[in-house]
């Protein structure tokens, strides 16, 4: 059916027609086809900060000072200016309006870093319900750190990692959490996942998943630590019921928490090996054994397959470490296990990995998959949105295009599946993105694949840096008449004269307004080119 693309006609249509049930929001979002950030202010004069992102409700723009010391928060405002001539719509913006300040108002700047710690500019999580921001500062990495006090050999160490919980409204630091001599993957918030008010922090070095709760009062409360133990009071139980046992047990079990979450200076512990399997490993191994036993009906077959699939690989399973974690809901975690080498190498794709679904309330492993498992892939293909969990109170996060909610994205996935030379390699490649990074996708409607088509190699909802090309990135209408609606061009207006230096672009789209920032940087320490894309 023909529908006009004229904005006035659409508004009129909205008045007289009732949309099909349940499509009101989709209808409303179609207006974004008419309202696009098609104008660009090139190389805008702006403070030399590294701009991180807009919060998912669009209320704040988060940026850090270049020296990684301060957090500077802006409020996006809409451009207002006056103009004396007639027909000012056709005119270019007056020079006074072509400023960063006409789009953003600085709310505050607070120092987060201390003498030895710097802000991790890749790390930021936003708790929308109470407008709290979580930031991280850390000291430098030590690569050849000795594995003491139950630490994993081969994982680097960071002397001090501090998480800061801020009230974004006024920049007041509400709470802090310090991890000493630990390693948490802070790049792209990989080692931390926020779901509603629950926070999962993966300590790679001590192999713990710390579950914390962000209270409305602004405090970080320990809920439990999964790793050595599964239930929150296991440690207490062990200490109290092993009073009759020898003193070795007590010293083994008591020293563990001291290393992990220490709010004071860390005391070097005498390394003491825990003779038992950790709680999570016990659950995992017993799950695998039970699964093999239930799989085979025949007794002799069962023995053979236990021997081949379980005992032969027993040590490999024991040596697996937790790489990454995400919440699937308030009780279930998707945990990725792999080798120590894979956890610290930049390219983890070549290392074998496993996925486990763990219920942290019942302390049960629900499922266990290999990286190249067809079964998990099919689940992922059909129910991708169950992996992309968003917090409850942000409905627009449900509109982020995925191959489970968007036919065009599904087609794209299918076509790359058909193009792939080997299915298992393809599955591996797709599954490498699991577990998802927390809050890594922009909810901007311009990335809605039912509205616009664009080159996903150059730009996408995923928050990541991209190699810059000299061509503007085109956003084309998905529906007829398939016309070019707007272009986003990072870097200087005239294009790049010096082709030798590699340039990296990042794009920050406002979740609601037709407003975006593109930041282009060469690898040298030159100031970045910041362009503002907006609707005039």
């Amino acid at each position, binding site marked *: 059916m023909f529908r006009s693309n004229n904005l006035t006609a659409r508004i009129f249509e909205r008045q007289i027609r009732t949309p099909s049930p349940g499509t009101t929001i989709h209808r409303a979002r179609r207006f974004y086809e008419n309202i696009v950030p098609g104008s660009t202010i090139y190389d805008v004069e702006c403070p030399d900060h590294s701009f991180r992102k807009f919060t998912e409700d669009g209320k704040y723009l988060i940026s850090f000072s270049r020296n990684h010391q301060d957090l500077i928060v802006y409020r996006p405002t809409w451009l207002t200016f006056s103009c004396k001539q007639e027909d000012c719509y056709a005119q270019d913006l007056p020079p006074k309006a072509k400023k960063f300040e006409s789009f953003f108002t600085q709310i505050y700047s607070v120092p987060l870093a201390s003498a030895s710690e710097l802000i991790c500019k890749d790390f930021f999580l936003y708790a929308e319900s109470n407008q709290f921001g979580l930031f991280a500062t850390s000291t430098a990495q030590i690569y050849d750190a000795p594995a003491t006090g139950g630490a994993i050999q081969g994982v680097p160490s960071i002397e001090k990692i501090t998480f800061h919980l801020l009230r974004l409204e006024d920049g007041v630091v509400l709470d802090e959490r310090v991890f000493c001599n630990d390693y948490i993957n802070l790049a792209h918030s990989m080692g931390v996942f926020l779901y509603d008010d629950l926070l999962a922090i993966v300590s790679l070095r001590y192999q713990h998943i710390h579950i914390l709760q962000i209270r409305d009062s602004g405090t970080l409360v320990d809920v439990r630590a999964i790793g050595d133990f599964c239930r929150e009071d296991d440690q207490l139980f062990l200490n109290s019921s092993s009073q*009759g046992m020898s003193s070795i047990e007590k010293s083994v079990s008591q020293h563990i928490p001291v290393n992990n979450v220490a709010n004071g200076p860390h005391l070097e512990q005498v390394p003491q090996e825990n003779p*038992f*399997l950790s*709680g999570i490993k016990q659950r995992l191994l017993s799950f695998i054994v039970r699964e093999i036993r239930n799989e085979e009906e025949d007794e002799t077959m069962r023995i053979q397959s236990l*021997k081949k699939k379980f005992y032969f690989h027993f040590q490999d399973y024991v040596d697996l470490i937790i790489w990454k974690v995400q919440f699937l809901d308030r009780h279930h975690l998707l945990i990725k296990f792999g080798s120590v080498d894979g956890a610290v190498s930049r390219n983890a794709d070549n290392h074998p990995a496993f996925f486990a679904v763990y219920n942290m309330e019942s302390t049960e492993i629900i499922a266990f998959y290999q990286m190249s498992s067809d079964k998990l892939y099919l689940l992922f293909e059909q129910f991708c949105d169950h992996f992309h969990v968003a917090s409850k109170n942000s409905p627009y996060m449900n509109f982020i295009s995925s191959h489970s909610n968007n036919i065009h994205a599904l087609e794209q996935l299918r076509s790359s599946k058909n193009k792939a030379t080997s299915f298992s390699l393809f599955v591996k490649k797709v599954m490498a993105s699991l577990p998802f990074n927390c809050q890594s996708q922009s909810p901007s409607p311009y990335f809605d694949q039912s509205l616009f088509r664009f080159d996903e190699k150059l730009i996408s909802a995923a928050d990541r840096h991209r190699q810059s090309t000299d061509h503007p990135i085109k956003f084309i209408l998905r529906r007829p008449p398939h016309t070019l609606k707007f272009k986003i061009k990072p870097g200087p207006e005239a294009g790049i004269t010096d082709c030798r230096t590699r340039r990296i672009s990042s794009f920050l789209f406002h979740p609601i307004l037709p407003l975006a920032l593109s930041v282009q940087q060469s690898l040298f320490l030159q100031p970045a080119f910041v362009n503002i894309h907006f609707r005039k």
Partner: protein
Amino acid sequence: MNSGSLTGGRSWPSRTSLTSSGKRIQKEMAELNTDPPADCSAGPKGDNLYHWVATLFGPQGTPYDGGIYFLDITFPANYPFKPPKVVFKTRIYHCNVDSTGNVSLDILEENSWSPALTISKVLLALRSIFTNPNPYKPQVPGIAHLYLVDKSKHDSLAAEWTQRFAK
């Protein structure tokens, strides 16, 4: 690989020429596979014949019911003339297993070990400590004492341990 045995730096026997202990372990493995004891199983870790893992399922009617226990079994180079060493890798509340997982079992002691015993017999003996703990020769006197004085409290504690640490 084989040069290691020439220099004497290797602590495990060469695989190319199986020693008598290796042959014996292989024979016992075949036996175990054809006639496995109930509620337990075992197999070599990787390709090392001398290092095994055993799995014991807590028998019904005991406080260990529902638990799955993993044990390390290490065979000495002069097996079967010396007993294998058995260690629990899963926490267990038991008067014959100490706080680091070492298990005291009559037949596993050097003096009472007999070369006629096999891995199947060892597994059976290990399984029997679930049903019949020996509080008169305890590794942990506290647990043995509780077992003798207040069996129901002992059992509920052991069941709690099973739920927490052996699931």
